């Protein structure tokens, strides 16, 4: 019995070793960065070589990148998952696709950056721009969206589809009117989770469209155009910590806190959505 107790304590300590750093990091960032954060900090552009002013241009850039990246990857990812779950037979092609999805998910972010630079910026001639950076991010998020959507589709009971086919609906009609509506919550949860991942990425956008500094018009949501380069929160944190000398001490903490806060808030939202919908499910 003593061994049992020891095992329990050791394993518990291992869990604590993961949980405590998370709490410590959040607490430390809040303590250091929170005093600087205000509505004005969020909505004004950086000034004086990024040492003063707010983070608006970076925040807006991140929003652009995330929205465009997911607008591209969500439809492709969902349709790919529909193919895998609803159409694909168990043959070599399906196995290849599944293997490709697994490997795509494991490609290092810096290799995505090289691909984005080689394919979108140079080969396709888009140039370093929001569009090229978003497309790079889109490919990075694709495998995760495929995986989460597949799981959501697989959770719809087979009997639902059979009932629909039996009243004469074709395969696509069944997917459109039965399978997708019943798995929408799961699909959305997966996509929302990718919002936070996309917002946090730095390496893939460094060479494809994000810049250290860009002056934009403040007070409008449409300050960037697709072919512009942009600032991004993650990149801004990198810039301020490693490139800007004499930045006020709390500034990087505040930027990190905004980034982390946004990411965790999005994650929390998806967890809430998931548990709400899980409790409503009747099968």
């Amino acid at each position, binding site marked *: 019995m003593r061994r049992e107790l020891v095992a329990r304590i050791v394993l518990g300590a291992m869990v604590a070793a993961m949980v405590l750093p998370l709490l410590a990091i959040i607490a430390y960032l809040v303590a250091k960065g929170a005093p600087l954060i205000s509505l004005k900090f969020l909505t004004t552009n950086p000034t004086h070589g990024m040492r003063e002013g707010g983070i608006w241009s970076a925040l807006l850039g991140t929003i652009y990148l995330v929205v465009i990246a997911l607008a591209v990857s969500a439809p492709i990812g969902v349709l790919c998952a529909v193919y895998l779950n609803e159409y694909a037979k168990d043959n070599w092609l399906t196995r290849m696709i599944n293997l490709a999805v697994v490997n795509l998910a494991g490609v290092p972010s810096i290799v995505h950056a*090289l691909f984005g630079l080689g394919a979108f910026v140079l080969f396709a001639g888009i140039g370093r721009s929001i569009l090229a950076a978003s497309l790079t991010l889109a490919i990075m998020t694709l495998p995760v969206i495929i995986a989460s959507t597949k799981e959501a589709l697989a959770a719809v009971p087979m009997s639902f589809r059979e009932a629909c086919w039996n009243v004469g609906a074709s395969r696509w009609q069944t997917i459109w009117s039965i399978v997708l509506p019943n798995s929408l919550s799961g699909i959305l949860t997966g996509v929302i989770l990718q919002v936070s991942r996309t917002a946090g990425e730095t390496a893939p956008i460094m060479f494809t469209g994000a810049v250290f500094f860009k002056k934009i018009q403040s007070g409008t949501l449409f300050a960037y155009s697709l072919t512009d380069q942009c600032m991004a929160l993650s990149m801004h944190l990198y810039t301020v910590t490693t490139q800007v000398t004499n930045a006020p001490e709390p500034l990087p903490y505040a930027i990190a806190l905004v980034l982390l806060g946004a990411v965790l808030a999005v994650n929390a939202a998806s967890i809430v959505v998931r548990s709400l919908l899980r409790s409503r499910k009747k099968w």
Partner: protein
Amino acid sequence: MTASQTDNLKRPRMARSMAAILGERTIELIIRICGVSAIVFVFGIFLFVLREGAPLIGKLDWTKVLFSQEWYPTSKGNVRYGVGALIVGTLSVTGLAMLFAVPFGIGAAVFVSEFSTGKVKETLKIVIEMLAAIPSIVWGFIGLSVMNRLIQQYLPAPVGLNLLNGAILLALMSVPIIVSIGEDALKAVPDSYREAAMAMGATRWQTVYRVLFPAARNGLLAAALLGVGRAIGETMAVLMATGHAVNIPKSIFDPIRTLTATIAAELGETAVGSDHYRMLFLIGVLLFSITFVVNLLADLAVRGVRKQ
């Protein structure tokens, strides 16, 4: 199980207009195209990265490149592209990180899967998800600002940005994936195994150690491998926290530099089409190949689990 199994059932079809049928054909074609997109992208990534690096392949002395630790890509007279030290840097920081992350990750997976229930379990899973969500740039910043100072203060290290710093960050970053895949592997072991062990009078820990670990061996191996893959590919955190010195580490307090960080730090300063630029793409090909193999092995291990 899958939709295809019902293919042979005869489904009554209603008469539909040509347009509706054509529309559906189009949509199904789009779905098929999206279906193979993942394959296209994996090949695309490999080909485009290789394409930028390829012209340099013939010009290099590859034994020198792979084993020399002299990385002087911008030297005026004598340019040398030895990635030996960078490979050792990547392997050492990944290895040290896994030394922390694998036992802790699997221990935490066991705790979540076997030793906790209800609310505690749900909360722990959410916390692990949160840990996984912290962006790598934030980890890098933590390494640069917090860990740097802690290491200098409490350990006999001349610099705070070193192998240990990067490894701790990488461990914290890869632990969530090890926990979640490891927990899946443990969950996949049928309850009858647990019941049989309990019926023989085994304690919970004995059950874990003697029954669940052997039964979930492949899944746990896959969890560790995916953690390795994650750590090798990580860029921003190691760029900021490891000191970025081309160096074969002699102790865990030495600064190092990884393959990923080298690309991130130098790509911005090279001219498109120059040898240095092409060399960085070749490092990308190397990274792609390493993670490809690691992921392939993890996939094979997982497939082993399913077969059981």
